[in-house]
């Protein structure tokens, strides 16, 4: 197809916009990161070598390309520290996403059952926390969870515990922070699919002898699968790379990959290793996306 035909209509031109966006703000920067991940660190400005400089001519460029290596990736694979860091990130993301689903589904389900005029209000209540800066909200949790914070005061007042519980710098605090922060991302796509389910389908199920529980499992849940998938991805992917919440709320014993990356970049000034971590993370996260895409396509195609 010639360029002329590709850009023939305004609609076609508009369809190119997302690709342009991808190219400019994703592929190009990713190209830089990829190149840096193949370089090695030096004490200089910029802090890595080789550097591509078109002014130095073809021969210098060839030499620079020859100097690129996979050493950083070999390091990531051989050092337990990095492997464990990736593993922890995936485990934390899996656990949080499961908790988010378990909490988010009933909330979204309840919202979709509200009388029509209450639903927008419930929606606003879910979104309202976004009006406060994310960082402020995480700091607020530090306040709540600290030694003489609200949580311990309440627990003590209710005589549920006799001495203040250590919350901060534990995984529990981190999960509380993660679930709290990502809950809207789970609820909204779930709510969107649940609200779309035709109530007549639930009636049809009841008519055919399905109790409320049967109807829920055989009609509501299958029909909300796209929402479950979207919500899970929307939470899982950013949580794997999460930095702020584990850094502020969890202990420092085993960092998540986002923290490790930060460490390499800012503490060790090792841009190439940091870049390699980012590249591997991206490749890891492509996997669930591809699976999701595959499943969605199969759903659309049906059993034709």
């Amino acid at each position, binding site marked *: 197809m010639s360029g002329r035909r590709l850009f023939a209509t305004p609609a076609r031109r508009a369809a190119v916009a997302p690709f342009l966006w991808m190219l400019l703000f994703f592929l190009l920067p990713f190209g830089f990161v990829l190149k840096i991940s193949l370089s090695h660190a030096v004490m200089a400005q910029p802090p890595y070598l080789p550097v591509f400089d078109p002014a130095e001519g073809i021969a210098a460029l060839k030499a620079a390309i020859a100097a690129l290596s996979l050493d950083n990736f070999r390091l990531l694979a051989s050092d337990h520290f990095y492997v464990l860091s990736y593993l922890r990130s995936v485990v934390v993301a899996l656990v949080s996403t499961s908790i988010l689903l378990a909490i988010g589904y009933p909330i979204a389900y309840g919202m979709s059952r509200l009388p029509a005029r209450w639903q927008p209000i419930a929606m606003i209540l879910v979104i309202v926390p976004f009006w406060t800066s994310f960082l402020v909200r995480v700091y607020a949790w530090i306040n709540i969870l600290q030694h003489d914070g609200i949580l311990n005061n309440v627990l003590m007042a209710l005589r549920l515990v006799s001495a203040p519980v250590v919350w901060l710098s534990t995984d529990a605090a981190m999960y509380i922070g993660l679930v709290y922060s990502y809950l809207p991302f789970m609820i909204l796509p779930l709510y969107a699919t649940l609200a779309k389910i035709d109530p007549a389908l639930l*009636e*049809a199920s009841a008519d055919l002898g399905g109790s409320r529980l049967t109807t829920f499992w055989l009609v509501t849940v*299958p*029909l909300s699968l796209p929402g479950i998938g979207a919500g899970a991805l929307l939470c899982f992917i950013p949580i794997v790379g999460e930095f702020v919440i584990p850094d502020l709320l969890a202990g420092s014993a085993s960092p998540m990959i986002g923290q490790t990356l930060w460490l390499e970049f800012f503490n060790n000034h090792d841009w190439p290793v940091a870049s390699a971590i980012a590249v591997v993370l991206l490749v890891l996260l492509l996997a669930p996306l591809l699976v999701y895409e595959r499943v969605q396509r199969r759903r659309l195609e049906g059993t034709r």
Partner: protein
Amino acid sequence: MTDEERRDFEATAQADKPLLQVDAVVRRFGEVSAVDHLSLDIRTGEFFALLGPSGCGKTTLLRMLGGFETPDGGRILLDGQDISGVPPHRRPVNMMFQNYALFPHLSVRDNIAFGLRRAGLPRAGIEARVTEMLALVSLDGMEKRKPEQLSGGQRQRVALARALARRPRLLLLDEPMAALDKKLRENTQAELMRLQRRLGMTFIIVTHDQEEAMMMADRIGVMNAGRLQQVATPRQLYEAPNSRWIAEFVGGINIIDGAVESSGRGRMSVATQSAGPVTVATPLQALTTDQVCVAIRPEKVRLSSGEAAPDAGDAAGTNRMEGVIAGVSYLGGQTRYQVRLDRGALLHASVANTVRREAEAFETAQRVVACFAPDDCMVLDR
């Protein structure tokens, strides 16, 4: 005795006891009474049709029987037991929804098997029943498709099969054949009737197609604004409507306003402005005023050409009115004429085309005589 024979036996044994009693049931939506103190008895094994203009409350009534709406008043008894508190999934009633409500994530087969699985039928029994149902609605070979891969008519048939599969005591059908073409509709009608007789099921069907209602139903109930205006056999409904509204709603009709002039010896004379004096048979139920209307079905009006001698065989008292053909619509099996009477009324007459050649046809502007017997006329309150 086989299962089916026993069912037949039970059906006959209970034939005179009503299966369903609807007793002064009310359902309001805000200000509107969608169903307004409606009472109705349905016998076991009966095929009952509900007719009525759009929005008169047919779906609402069916939904109350299925358990999806709670009556604001009155009682619904099934086998003499009040089922108001019984949730839909415990009622021996199935409904075919007006918009089908097929499960989009399930195949045709699984849609039909859904109710059978809930009933705990053995696997082999389910398979057999699903296959039978697929054949019934001529959807063999489509069992693996999803509802979105079917045409409107095919979806409707899946919905029908799904509702029938459980062989409920009472089956509620909300416009089950609205999306089918004529041929398929006739086949499905015949199949439904056969099945209903064979299984001794009781059907309540909502339809906008009066011929369909007449053809299938033992009795027809005509609703208007939440109330049943008349419940009668198809013939009674057509030949002896109990009100002007019913007469106008069911089939085509000519209505001429007038006033009772004299009556006696089974005959009544009604003076009308637009058609002169009309002789009619005295109605069985007394009229409340002498301000009445005369109603006559188009096919009961006979036409003859103006010059022709009056039909010698006609009984005395036949109404004869002269006029001019104002319009002709040829419909294949019959031709509809509009006759402008000299006195002013526009009379519709439909004539069966019993012979092929055109000699018997009338033309526009031709003078004709319209005749109809007093016994074919109905007198109704205005």
